[in-house]
């Protein structure tokens, strides 16, 4: 049991990394423009916070953006798995968040996350 508990996150992480490798950041860029572009930009805060560098950044921490108390208090750092969970159901990941927008299709989420990864590498 203990072993399984320890292994599970690692296995999940690998599976997601595999999914991300198969994912298409180019398609993700188009999805980003159509689905996220109302509220987000890469380099400016709009209704939602800017996204460049989001992978590896603590949640709710981009300077100058007025986050919900819930997301501002989140104690995790964005990675592919957490972004996938956020896009699937933001309220389940961070109750009290303000985004309220979700992406139902897993391969769409994979492509979006691959795109966010591609704009986060320094």
């Amino acid at each position, binding site marked *: 049991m203990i072993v399984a508990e320890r292994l599970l996150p690692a296995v999940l992480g690998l599976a997601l990394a595999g999914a991300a490798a198969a994912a298409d950041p180019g398609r993700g860029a188009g999805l980003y*423009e*159509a*689905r*996220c*572009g*109302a*509220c987000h*930009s890469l380099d*400016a*805060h*709009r*209704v*939602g916070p800017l996204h460049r560098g989001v992978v590896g950044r603590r949640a709710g921490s981009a300077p100058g953006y007025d986050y*919900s108390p819930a997301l501002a208090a989140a104690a995790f750092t964005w990675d592919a798995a957490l972004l996938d969970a956020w896009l699937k159901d933001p*309220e389940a990941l961070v109750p*009290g*968040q*303000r*985004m*309220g*927008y*979700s992406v139902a*299709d897993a391969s*769409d989420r994979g492509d979006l996350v691959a795109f966010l990864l591609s704009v986060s590498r320094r």
Partner: protein
Amino acid sequence: MLIKTTPAQYSARRNFLGRSTSIALSGAAVALLAGNSRLAVAATGNPSGDVNILNVALGLEHEAIAAYQVGAESGLLQKPVLDTAVLFQSHHKQHRDALVATIEKLGGKPVMAKSNSDYAASLGAGGLKSQTDILNLAARLELGAANAYIGVIPAFSEKDLAKVAARLAADETMHWSLLANALGKPVPMAALSFGA
């Protein structure tokens, strides 16, 4: 010309625009949203979650109003495109007023607009050099807003608010369609291209 039309349709549209841009905002849209007293109670759902989503929607409307203002003041829009831009802006102002009234009715605090120069900067308005650039920006924002409004529908705890989001999405889709036509963009080949 915003929309490719025959001269007869053109003058019909001129009349339409002429009338529409001079309408007094009656507040009818506000009543549509806020006249529902059941919303004031909203005891069944999650009013603070709903207020959060409505405030995000209000933020989109503030941004759209500013974008059309920047466009209208740029000197790049020719009549009758300018009139249409002002008409679309007036729709967004009615959305704003309706959302503010609804948020207040639910006991929330409506988000304030930022300054037009803040919006201009975050939208990259400095790079707008032509009427086409402005129409492209407007089309992008309207499409994004339509998709966003459809996307938040399932997140409302109150069904009446979900319907409001659908009605807002319909207005934005109508704007996008006219802008896309003016830009000579093709009609989407596939069905169900919005809000996927």
